[in-house]
């Protein structure tokens, strides 16, 4: 009984703290920190138990009727565990980071309340068992992240928030419309491994295609597919932990995860290919990969460069999804995790540089490796990972995507990967060069000292941890429960026998 309700407990482990934190008075710092960390650890444990169970073949499901004809379903399958695992892990680290980051800042209750609400929505997205439930949490995510984006309350933040809302609400509407079209055809659609629409008669295929286009457009806003990516670089005015979260786990990944769900568990990869839906998605993904990288080259603000890099990198997931064949699927799914781990590292580092040295512009980073060696090392690892240099995590993604491209009979996709890697090198390596090989130019723009270490330990611990994960995910890719192994497990379950 307790076990079968596991998805609910996972959801509750952030929903309940969210409510409690809203109720806590602003000055109760200790209690809030304890609550945050306890909840994050608890969630990690719960997700770990759930993942273990799923690996053994258990499926946890909670279901009750919301309205007639539409159930509220939380279900933990292998795919759900992929995203829930990533979220739980990075949530823990980001919470630690945020606690340090907001030390002494105003409105912490509000911040951490929405922060927890945001993770609750992400967990909901991960565990949703059907489209309706997914939509519910997807919208909740939009609403809970808005206060985080505008947290600073400056004119720029509010403007970015408006853009963010405009994009995401429109996207939500498109998604809703797509689901409605689908509902009119087949009723409530549950997520099932290998998909559930194969039995739809051929006469209804045009509607299926329209529904697909609408849903992908809706999800593509959050996944920052070109040309729907405009909100993402603007939203980087948010505080560093929020950016880390938006880019690595919550918003962007929710969109990408939605695309994965729609292709694999609603349509089914084989049926999607039959409907000729994959090639257009691949073209959009390739365009996004290249465009994001090209734009990233032109940025001089560190966070903006990272933001465009996200635009590019997240589309690797869509690319992997659209490459028909198990190897492409593995590449896309594993990148869902790898991109998260690597990008969160990079954003932590950007936050460390900004908070410790006051550096926001890439040109001010000269010699930062001497002042902040640990952060700079983590940044270097993240950057090389993004370029796809072995033996780091990004290489594993790229390797399988490349194999997938050949398997799908589309070797030109390899060209896209190579050009993108070169662009990645072109915008990441100069930063690495500045960190380590340029002399310190003079006084830092706004230097703070944090006791014994190069920066606050609250910042350093998450940065080191995620950097180590970036190395480990690549170097030990063959180990049990590594991202690669898990992606392979899902892939085995997603293709028709």
């Amino acid at each position, binding site marked *: 009984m307790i076990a079968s309700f596991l998805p609910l407990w996972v959801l509750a482990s952030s929903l309940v703290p969210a409510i409690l934190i809203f109720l806590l008075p602003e000055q109760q710092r200790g209690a809030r920190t304890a609550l945050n960390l306890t909840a994050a650890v608890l969630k990690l444990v719960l997700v770990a138990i759930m993942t273990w169970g799923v690996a053994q073949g258990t499926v946890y499901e909670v279901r009750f009727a919301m309205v007639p004809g539409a159930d509220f379903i939380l279900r933990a399958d292998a795919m759900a565990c992929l995203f829930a695992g990533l979220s739980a892990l990075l949530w823990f680290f980001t919470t630690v980071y945020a606690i340090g980051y907001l030390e002494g800042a105003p409105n912490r209750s509000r911040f951490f309340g929405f922060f927890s609400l945001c993770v609750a929505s992400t967990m909901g997205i991960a565990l949703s068992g059907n489209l309706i439930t997914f939509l519910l949490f997807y919208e909740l995510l939009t609403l809970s992240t808005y206060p985080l984006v505008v947290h600073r309350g400056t004119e720029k933040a509010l403007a970015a928030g408006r853009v963010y809302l405009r994009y995401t609400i429109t996207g939500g509407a498109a998604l809703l419309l797509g689901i409605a079209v689908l509902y009119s055809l087949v009723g409530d659609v549950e997520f099932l491994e290998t998909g559930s629409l194969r039995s739809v008669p051929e006469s209804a295929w045009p509607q299926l295609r329209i529904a697909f286009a609408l849903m992908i457009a809706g999800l593509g806003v959050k996944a920052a597919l070109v040309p729907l990516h405009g909100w993402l670089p603007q939203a980087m005015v948010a505080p560093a932990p929020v950016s880390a979260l938006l880019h690595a786990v919550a918003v962007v990944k929710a969109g990408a995860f939605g695309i994965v769900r729609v292709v694999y568990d609603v349509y089914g990869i084989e049926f999607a290919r039959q409907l000729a839906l994959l090639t257009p998605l691949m073209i959009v993904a390739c365009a996004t990969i290249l465009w994001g990288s090209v734009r990233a080259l032109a940025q001089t603000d560190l966070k903006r460069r990272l933001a465009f890099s996200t635009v590019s990198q997240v589309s690797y997931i869509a690319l992997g999804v659209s490459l028909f064949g198990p190897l492409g699927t593995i590449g896309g799914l594993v990148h869902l995790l790898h991109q998260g781990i690597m990008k969160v590292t990079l954003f932590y580092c950007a936050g460390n540089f900004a908070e410790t040295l006051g550096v926001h512009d890439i040109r001010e980073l000269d*010699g930062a490796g*001497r002042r902040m*060696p640990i952060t700079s090392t983590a940044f270097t690892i993240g950057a*090389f990972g993004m*370029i*796809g*240099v*072995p*033996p780091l995590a990004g*290489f*594993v993604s*790229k*390797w399988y995507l*490349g*194999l997938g491209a*050949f*398997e799908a009979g589309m*070797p030109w996709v*390899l060209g896209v*990967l*190579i050009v993108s*890697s*070169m662009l990645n*090198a072109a915008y990441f*390596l100069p930063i690495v*060069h500045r960190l*380590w*090989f340029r*002399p*310190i130019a003079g006084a830092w723009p706004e230097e703070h000292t944090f006791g014994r270490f190069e920066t606050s330990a609250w910042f350093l611990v998450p940065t080191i941890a995620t950097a180590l994960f970036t190395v480990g995910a*690549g*170097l*030990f*890719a*063959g*180990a049990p429960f590594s991202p*690669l192994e898990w992606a392979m497990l899902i892939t085995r379950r997603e293709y028709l026998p």
Partner: protein
Amino acid sequence: MNAMLFAASVGVPFLLWVAACVPAWRRTVALTLPIAPLPALAAAMLSSPGTSVPVPWLMLGGTWALDGTRRPLLAAMALVWCIGGWFALESPSLATKRHAVAWPWLFSLTGNLWLALATDIGGFYSGFAMMSFGAYALIMLGDGVHTRAAGRLYLIYTVIGEMALLGGLLAASIAGAGNQLGDVPSAVAASPHALWITMALLVGFGVKAALFGVHGWLRMTYAMAPAPVRVVLGGAMINAGVLGWLLTLPIGLTTLDPLGPWLIVLGLFAAIYGAARGVPLGYAPFVLGWSSVSQMGLITVLLGAALASGNSGFIPVITLYAAHHGVAKGALFAGSDETLSVRPAYRRWLLLPALALAGAPFTSGAAAKLSMKAEFAMIELTWADPWLSVAAVGTTLLMVRVFWSTERMAGEAMRTPLSWWLALGSVATAVWWLPLAADVQSGASYLVTLGWPIAAGVALGALAWSRHTPRPTVFGERSAIQSVDVQVPAKSKDSDVSPRPVSTAGAERASAWDARLRSAIPVLLGVVLLVVVAALMTHAT
């Protein structure tokens, strides 16, 4: 025992690298640079054939093993890393940077040794990338005004090479090799796109191996990097590229008709062009850089002949040639360090590696050259003979030029670096410890065959030497040369290069330890070297 040796080969440098991550330990760890490659050397010499150590947990899973191609190259690479590491402690070019050298050095070394042992694509490629990117940090230790530009150029070529490799290895993997490096040649041979995959791999490894066309980084990098870094770049890492070629190209499995003959032509051109470009230059590292292009041109000829004829007998010949070239070139780079002022008498010992490279009788070069000729004769590649002779004369001229240009450097008396003797010893004994296909012969025809290009080269060189005073200004390379000439090694552009201020007591203790360890290392190394060489000789017989 064998498994332990393999594990230590990569594990020891890796653990030392981990130790070098702690800033306070860096200077101490730097003292271990000469001994870090010793386990690998031992593995190359002592491990029994057929040993393989499974490492399923590493990357995508794989095994470590040595075969007839890897073993001699690993021996040569480890030895050069040994020489280079020792030289790094002795060369004045790195005297103020002891703390900065350990980290990238050990990182590159770990990568190089990993790739030499890894039989899985993931591991090999990882090691290759570690080595390549680590070398950037090594190059950036240089003091010249163009160091940054040189590093940038190196990095651009490296990234291009990595991408070509990614494409080639992916295509080979999907063509049937999976994750097994050993299956790459047959998969490539069987693939309908064999030509393209081969070209991708050729270019990918060629960037490291100074393949003509992607050699553009070489000259600047060699000139700007500190001398010990040149030793390992030009002596060891270059052979990692050659090893990549030998392990992945479909040699002996298919005849890649359009590519093979073209490679022969390209290689011959590179061999002669490299000599022509290098001879007029007055700065030894430039000359040696062009000499590498020229020598790798000869290896390209061999490779082209192998691919054109489908004869796998070329593999041991290339292996031998590359190993011999690596050791000799490493010694030449060490001997021509412009920051080192040793008595001219010692500098004269450069003659030994120079003669070896030129292929003088009774040297490893002679054996390499004879086995090359024998293989060419077997496939009846006679039209190339005169060109090969021209290249041989060119090599001799290059060596004369190296002498000429180092003559100026010979400054006041200073203790000869002990690593120099190790380098000379390695070159002198290479003819025994490398698995030489052709035995050292004697007789008049042997001496004439090998001797006439050298005699011609020396005569030409002597003629030029007697008529001109050296002027280091050719082909627009003046500025780089001048900057190298006027640089002051002790004072670098970054003030932070100097050691951090620490309490004096600690510093004194550290330097006392430093001195003690420094004096102990040569003795230790000498003993180990003797043992290793002895083991080698018995192994070879």
